[in-house]
């Protein structure tokens, strides 16, 4: 299972790099989404996969006999997903605004802030 997750994570990162190298802002954002999901999977796998083991102590607070799941990586992931969602929503809104401003989404042609001929 870990191997599968590792390969999947690597595949997502590779795809995202390919998408982000494109000059189109929308493709870049899709790449970013895949990149963060690739990293999320990696963190999930790095936090050890313990299927079926609950993250619970015994009735008197003693450690369980078998394996015990660690809930912290999931908690980290949840935080990261929520934050990532917020940032992505902002990035999408910005993209719409950029499209209305420039009429296209080609990053190479967005030169208002940095004109090619900077001085006379």
């Amino acid at each position, binding site marked *: 299972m870990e191997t599968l997750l590792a390969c999947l994570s690597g595949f997502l990162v590779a795809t995202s790099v390919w998408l*982000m190298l494109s000059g189109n*802002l929308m493709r*870049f*954002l899709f790449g*970013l989404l895949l*990149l*963060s999901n690739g*990293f999320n999977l*990696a*963190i999930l*796998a*790095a*936090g*050890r996969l313990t299927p079926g083991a609950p993250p619970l102590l015994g009735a008197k607070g003693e450690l369980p006999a078998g394996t015990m799941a660690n809930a*912290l*990586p999931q908690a*980290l*992931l949840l*935080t*990261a997903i929520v*934050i990532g969602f*917020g*940032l992505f929503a*902002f*990035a999408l809104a*910005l*993209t719409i*605004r*950029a499209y209305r*401003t*420039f009429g296209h989404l080609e*990053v190479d042609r*967005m*030169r*208002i*802030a*940095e004109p090619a001929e*900077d*001085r*006379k």
Partner: protein
Amino acid sequence: MSWVLALPIMIPFVTAVVAFLLRRSRLGDLASVGGSVASLVAAVVLIDKVLDQGVIAGQIGGWQAPFGITLVADHLSAAMVLITAIIGLSVAIWSLAEIGPQSARFGYHALFQSLLGGVAGAFLTGDLFNLYVWFEVLLISSFGLLVIGGRQSAIDGAVKYVTLNLISTVMFLGGAGLLYGATGTLNMADLRGAVATSPDQGLMTLIAMMLMIAFGLKAAVFPLFFWLPASYHTPHYAVSALFAGLLTKVGVYALMRVFTLIFVGDIGYTHEILLWVSLLTMLTGVLGAAAQGDFRKILSFHIISQIGYMVLGLALMTPLAVMGAVFYLLHHIIVKTNLFLIAGVSRRLTGSSDLYAIGGLYRTAPLLAALFIIPAFSLAGFPPLSGFWAKFVIVQASLEIGEGLVAGIALLVGLLTIFSMTKIWAEAFWKSHPDGRQPTLADLPRSARWQMLGPIMMLAAMTVVIGAFPSPFLEFATRGAEQLVDPAAYVAAVLGEARQ
């Protein structure tokens, strides 16, 4: 838990809520200034306690380290919180003159305060994942502030700023997550021991590099700085002054914290990379500045070149060099914010930031010219201003360990800095205005004049005082550097004496 540690973070967020509720009236602006004063008081109390007791730590919610989230203040953190509060107050007052009711209605003051809260949180946290969360808080606030003017160039700059910073965020998250997977802890003091004793040192170096890229992107070091000159000259002047002073410095702080506390196992590798990166950052930044013809663009490139000096101090990793980096960091924030505020006044008086379209300020606004000279010469490193001591210590530290080439580059970059400062001086202040306009400070409304010049004078006075009486500040930086190079006190304060 200790209120002294929590208040510098809580006050800005409470202020942000109040300012947001009052955003439609002038009271919102005043709430922002009032909250900044309260933050300043809290920061002074904090630094007083740190000077008195050394490193102080508090556990949030009573969960003991390394399981709970820790807030820690050593000399560096406390000083950074204080300087954040000073910059926050200065720019909050200055904003009164620039930020109109429309930007205020979109929540300018609320975003401004939550940015300050995020910055203070990043300086005070002792937990790597918590640092990630504070980075996000200040990042999303900075996104809002960047686009709040709504000008076309601001949207353009924001596209580059947002996308590249999001990549840095993902790298940081990945590094933190893998580090937890490998060591089982996220508490930075605990990580020091866990990383040192980890059986897989190669993996540790890999994670160190991921964090170096993440923080390096935030700090705008050599191959990762392109978002900065693309965006810093586009928003309101108050916003770019705040960004210029604080945001990249959060990245530098994170680099200093992580590469003195956690990743010191392979200094020959990680710090050697930092050394080359810092030299290239200094050179490309200052050369970029020399090629520009816009007030704020020149200043933006100077941020990059000055970041190089701070990273250089960290890369050399001797007590003297780290002391130089700490001193540089503190001096630079004051000077850089001040220069952007002066650029804002110049723009207001002359109507443009293009250096070839303005001029005549020396004759018509001599006070502004005098106020510009102080931070400009300090940035370039003229004695007896604060920048001289900062550069002096860094150069001395590199000569001390026989790095003559490094010292030579540091001095050369100082020389080139003077070149582009004289360019601003000659174009904006010395030559007469190309259209024959005679802009004077009296053109500004009376209230705006003081709201703009008051903070500039205060920051300039601080630059002069640090330069004229450097010994207490150098002494402070020395103690801060000792805590960084030998973090035993930091670890003890967080984990308790027993677990050392």
